[in-house]
């Protein structure tokens, strides 16, 4: 009986189905996007580089560094640094820094580098340092504690920050020259301010004597921007879902009201109001469930597509969203079935059949 009713009036069924699919689809897509927004944007924000800096005056032992890196959450990037003040040939001071170039490249994506050093003995020279130290890209000598070191220029580095005045060597070169150990570890941890603070606390406990500080500039601005973005998306989500719900309610109610003649016939044939109500409710619920499942599939697809287009990585499906959407749709369907009942409840079957 339900099937026949759906088939008999196909265009009306199709329209109601469209409304259900659209409402469920958009709600699923937006809720899914919203719940994955933090993860997506935290990854974006890691472009700003380190949000935790760990330092110790005496330098980290290689085992400590390994241990620290192994303990970091997935997706973190850490790069060791060490700084020394060397003298150029004109006796002016130059900061010589050493790092693991491969990691620095991943951590500090904004560094504009003409060519990364490939061989031992080659250095990355800041753009201001290059102007002062190297003529036309030729090598130059530096002196640290009476020990000279010859630097070959592999490429220039431009950041607009302190790095522009520095000379970057590989860790091996600097350790051989000055026997200094890395004493700063810059870490980019993906996650909220609280997660960053948790990682910092764990590192503090793990390496006693080291100073571990979240970079407030990065962490606070990130939390702020993220909060605002989340707010806007939430606002949009509420508005859109509210609209979809209201439209769905209107369409379903109309489709039930449309069948007041069926209602009248059934009543005239002796069905109780409750029975007719249950029948309508069952019919509309079945309808809503089918539409909802289709909508949820489409919505998942939509959110995955948005993730792919905008963030170049698919949005992780949040299955917890689905029962919420299904429950919401069924609730709307139940209201849509009950509302006409209230309106039609008192009407005489005869009057309805007459078309009044």
């Amino acid at each position, binding site marked *: 009986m339900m099937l026949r009713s759906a088939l008999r009036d196909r*265009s*009306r069924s199709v*329209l*109601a189905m469209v*409304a259900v699919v659209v409402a469920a689809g*958009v709600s699923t897509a*937006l809720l899914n*996007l919203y719940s994955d*927004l933090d993860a*997506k*944007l935290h990854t*974006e*924000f890691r472009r*700003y580089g380190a949000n935790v800096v760990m*330092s110790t005056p005496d330098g980290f032992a290689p085992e400590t560094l390994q241990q620290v890196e192994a303990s970091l959450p997935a997706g973190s990037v850490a790069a060791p640094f060490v700084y020394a*003040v060397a003298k150029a040939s004109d006796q*002016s*001071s*130059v*900061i010589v820094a050493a790092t693991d170039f491969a990691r620095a490249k991943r951590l*500090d*994506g904004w560094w*504009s580098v003409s060519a990364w050093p490939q061989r031992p003995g080659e250095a990355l020279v800041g753009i*201001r*340092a290059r102007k*002062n130290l190297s003529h036309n890209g030729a090598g130059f000598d530096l002196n640290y504690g009476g020990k000279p070191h010859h630097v070959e220029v592999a490429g220039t580095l*431009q*950041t*607009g*920050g*302190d790095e522009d*005045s520095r000379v970057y060597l590989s860790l091996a070169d600097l350790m051989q020259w000055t026997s200094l150990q890395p004493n700063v570890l810059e870490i980019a941890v993906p996650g909220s301010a609280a997660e960053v603070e948790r990682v910092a606390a764990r590192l503090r406990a793990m390496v006693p004597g080291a100073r571990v500080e979240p*970079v*407030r*500039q990065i*962490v606070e*601005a990130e939390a*702020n*921007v993220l909060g*605002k*973005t989340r707010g*806007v998306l939430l*606002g*949009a989500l509420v*508005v*859109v879902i509210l*609209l*979809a719900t*209201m*439209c*769905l309610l*209107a*369409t379903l109610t*109309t*489709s039930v009201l*449309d069948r007041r003649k069926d209602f009248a016939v059934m009543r005239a044939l002796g069905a109780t109001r409750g029975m007719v109500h249950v029948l309508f409710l069952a019919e509309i619920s079945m309808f809503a469930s089918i539409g909802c499942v289709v909508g949820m599939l489409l919505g998942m697809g*939509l959110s995955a597509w*948005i993730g792919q*287009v*905008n963030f170049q990585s698919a949005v992780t499906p949040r299955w917890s969203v689905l029962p919420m959407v299904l429950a919401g749709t069924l609730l709307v369907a139940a209201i849509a079935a009950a509302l006409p009942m209230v309106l039609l409840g008192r009407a005489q079957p005869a009057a309805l059949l007459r078309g009044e």
Partner: protein
Amino acid sequence: MFVRLVYQSFLRQRRRKLLAATAVALGTAVTTAMLVVASDIGDKISRELRGYGANIAVYPQEDTLDVRIGGVNLKPSTAGAYLDERELWKIKQIFWRHNIVGYAPFLQVPVEVSTGTQQRNVELIGTYFDKRIQLSNDDFTTGVTKTHPWWRVTGAWPADDGRDDVLIGRRLAATLGTRTGEFITLSGRRLRVTGMLDTGAAEDDAVVAPLALVQEIAGRPNAVRRVLVSALTKPEDAFARRDPGAMNPADRDRWYCSPYANSIAFQLREALPGAQAEQIRQVAQNEGAVLGRIRGLMLLVTLAALFASALAVAAAMATAILERKKEVGLMKALGAPNGMIAAVFYTEAGVLALAGGALGFAGGALLAQQISRAIFGTSVAVQPVLFPLVVALAILVTCGASAAAIRRGVAFEPAMVLRGDA
């Protein structure tokens, strides 16, 4: 006759028309709200991203190399060149002056600080906190409160024109055991600590004072080592990276008149002779990337919402027309041509779209305003051009959705419909 048909239809079927108009109004409201919010999100987030602080650094061209590790300056104050503090107001006179959110000059000198019991060598940083700059057209306040919004002070900020008040870094205060309101001695001067500074960076180990006081202590009137500028910029693209020197005049004008970090830095170099201005890539480059992502997200969500409202409105309209099969049958039975019936329906749809669209636009603008107020604390400008656009969209969707239903409705055999068989 035609007008009366339409008029009577609205008068007689008030409930149905109200339902359809509500659907159109809701769809338009969502469309408007989303369009307004999405078109404004770039500006809003751009402002929020200024929370990362300065994106342009200005320093003397002839300067020797910076000797800074972890934000601590190791360069003796005798070495290198300085900028002149008296020239800095020109930063607010460049072409993109309205995009300059703030700037803060810095001068660092190593000093010896002593309390009653302890002595320590620390860095003394001079800067503006919230300094009032007199300009010919209007006044402007700037300083670290604008460029370094993550600096937090427990206690009070010192006055910029004061000569006796300083801030003390959180860690330094802990090692010295100094508290807010106490006095420290710095190069023979007794200074009052008005507050404790927490930045999570090198300033936690330093004393921060008004610029004028540090210039006095250093014996270098009007000297500034570098200026950090926070500017609203447009994300960098390939055009922004080109060298203005190698452009033709038209391109150069376009480059100059776009608020890229590079062109603002270029204008700062023009305004301050002898100064070098560079974008701070960590902030400037990533701002564009993050902004692009957020803007893209909102754009796609808006598109999805637009599509959904169009479908929802279409479904509601089509339902409303299919409901009226009997009426169509009656009209046809009375001899109305198909074109006439379609015209009646289209006119009705148009009137509904116009009314619903106008109402929805007003509601949507209000909604966007509420969202903006609640989240960003500022109002949002609703572009007037959106109104015809949104209403046209509403008419298009409504009539488009009605078209299929009208075609079907008109095709019914009157006798069948009236008997209730179709």
